């Protein structure tokens, strides 16, 4: 047993942790935008699945990875607008709107893949992103291969955290966003356009979810699978609560869950005398445990779930 846990094992584990955390960071930041404006976006799971497919199909037919990323972001934005139409313009139940979008986007993913690709014996694959090895820095022992030999989308995800933090806490838009999320009536009285602020938040959120979706098929795997997102959208909803709606704390939660994901894959490979399904369960069980632990102290933006209608 001891030989397994070498330095190499831990470098591999931590490197995989960052990789697995990438879509979680991006999508959770997206969800933070939505919820900070007062809208719970349960469309996240379906949006990630559908954008992962769109990214795959675009790259499959054009051989252009960045075009895949771009279309995924655009489609994510379109779904953000759809979510905004329901929750901002119509002001109907945010729970049901989000679930409806997830059901629709998931159904559409299955339909589109089967209609375009069919069900071949061997699913088609693409040439994924290569890791971007940063010169010099990647040569640092231990830290180098963990931090500086990652996919470019992973670097983007890590950089997004301070950027989102800056937007939310230091810009005028961020101020409006927080005001609208806490007290839309007061924000409106101060001349902030509540509708527009929520629209922008849901558009940014959808774009980030699309970017996260593209990671699944363009970096993490080289093909599309129906279960490729596998509930990670719901994990992101929990991560927002865990992070207490603070972008900086998203990193901690995403690393924790990415770590459990990476660890369970390795434990499966080692082959303990436990059915591998119990390892697959770990991230979901952990999410529930964490939710229980943080639920009492979680303070959501006050206007969440409440539609705002200007009379």
């Amino acid at each position: 047993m001891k030989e397994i846990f070498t330095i190499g094992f831990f470098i591999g584990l931590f490197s995989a942790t960052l990789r697995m955390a990438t879509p979680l960071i991006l999508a959770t930041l997206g969800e933070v935008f939505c919820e900070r404006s007062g809208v719970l976006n349960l469309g996240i799971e379906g949006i990630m699945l559908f954008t992962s497919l769109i990214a795959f199909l675009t790259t499959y037919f054009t051989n252009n990875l960045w075009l895949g990323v771009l279309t995924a972001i655009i489609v994510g934005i379109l779904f953000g607008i759809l979510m905004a139409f329901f929750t901002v313009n119509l002001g109907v139940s945010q729970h049901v709107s989000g679930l409806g979008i997830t059901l629709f986007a998931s159904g559409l993913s299955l339909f589109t893949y089967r209609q375009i690709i069919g069900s071949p014996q061997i699913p088609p694959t693409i040439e994924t992103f290569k890791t971007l090895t940063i010169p010099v820095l990647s040569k640092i022992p231990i830290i180098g291969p963990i931090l500086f030999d990652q996919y470019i989308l992973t670097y983007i995800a890590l950089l997004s955290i301070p950027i989102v933090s800056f937007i939310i806490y230091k810009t005028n838009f961020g101020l409006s966003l927080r005001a609208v999320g806490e007290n839309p009536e007061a924000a409106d009285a101060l001349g902030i356009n509540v509708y527009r602020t929520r629209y922008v938040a849901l558009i940014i959120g959808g774009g980030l979810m699309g970017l996260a979706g593209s990671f699944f098929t363009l970096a993490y795997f080289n093909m599309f699978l129906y279960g490729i997102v596998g509930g990670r959208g719901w994990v992101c909803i929990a991560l927002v609560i865990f992070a207490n709606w603070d972008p900086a704390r998203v990193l901690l939660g995403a690393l924790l869950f990415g770590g459990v994901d990476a660890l369970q894959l390795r434990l499966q490979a080692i082959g303990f005398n436990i059915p591998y399904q119990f390892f697959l369960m770990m991230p979901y069980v952990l999410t529930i445990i964490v939710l229980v632990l943080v639920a009492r102290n979680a303070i959501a933006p006050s206007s969440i779930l409440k539609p705002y209608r200007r009379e």
Partner: protein
Amino acid sequence: MPLPKFRLEKRESVPNWFRMALPFIAIGISFIFSSIIILFAGKNPVTSIYSIFYGALGTRLGLMETLVKATPLILTGIAVSFAFTGKFWNIGAEGQLYAGALAATWAGISNFNIPSFLYIILLLVVGFIAGGLWALIPGYLKAKLKVDDVVTTLLMNYIILYLVTAILEGPWRDPVTMWPQSIMISPNAEFPKLLQKSRVHFGLIVGLLVVFLVYIIIKHTKLGFNIRAIGANPNASNFLGINVTKTIIITSLISGGIAGLAGVGEVAGLHYHLTENISPGYGYTGIVIAMLGGLNPIGVLFASFFFAIIITGAQYMSRATGVTSFIADVIQGITLLVLLAMLILYEYRIRRVE
């Protein structure tokens, strides 16, 4: 020419005919949107939609299969509807269905030496308890610890699916075929068939009975009153002297139990053994059914038949036209969204501005 202008005007009350008509209008609009998607797939939407209905209703075989599909859908639909009535966001009917199926299979393959009708009752009881307990976890966490129920009920679906797979690939693996499926349940535990030369089984009666019981509970009992009060306003319910915590826990238990019965029916009425894929998402369809049925037991009954038609017909249509049967999933999503958008017409009406 200037376009006519419309504006929304607040309604005083919703006429009854409008309440009845709205789901049908929503279905009609959903078919228009679905047609656009079928057009994108390069197929003919008219023949596609026609063959959905023909496949589900046009032949005796199709009609019987529609009733078979309606059986679990009635139960998951009413389970979700019951939970939503009390604002318990049970998105976990899929997992609770599997919990019920797991328990029923356990009882079924244990080969108890009891008369058939007792065996069937036993299966229903253990299935209800298992589904109920699986939903009780998120129910308890919501009621006692304020843990978000949407996320927990959803995550529990993934957990039980892995649990079922672990059991089927492990201790319950069929020793003869070596496939990841349980052995057959005792013939004594099998649900009787209702109609000759069909797969329609006793589960349909269970479904109808549950719809009736839920109707009675919601409309005519103290518990039902409390659930409706919490659904209308959880904060005010505390002042009315309703024990909100206790009511949420009971709601979760009953809702999960009903979804568990759907799993019992699939095992004891249809497959006679447990596989990993006894449900192609009946639990999630239950959400759409509950909403389309307006959280009303009778409405839920109609909505389950409607989606049974779509799911059964889509398989026929897939063979006939080459449009994949996943169109059924697309239609479900679109119907939910269209309906949701139209619900605003309960509150407002569209008036033309002169």
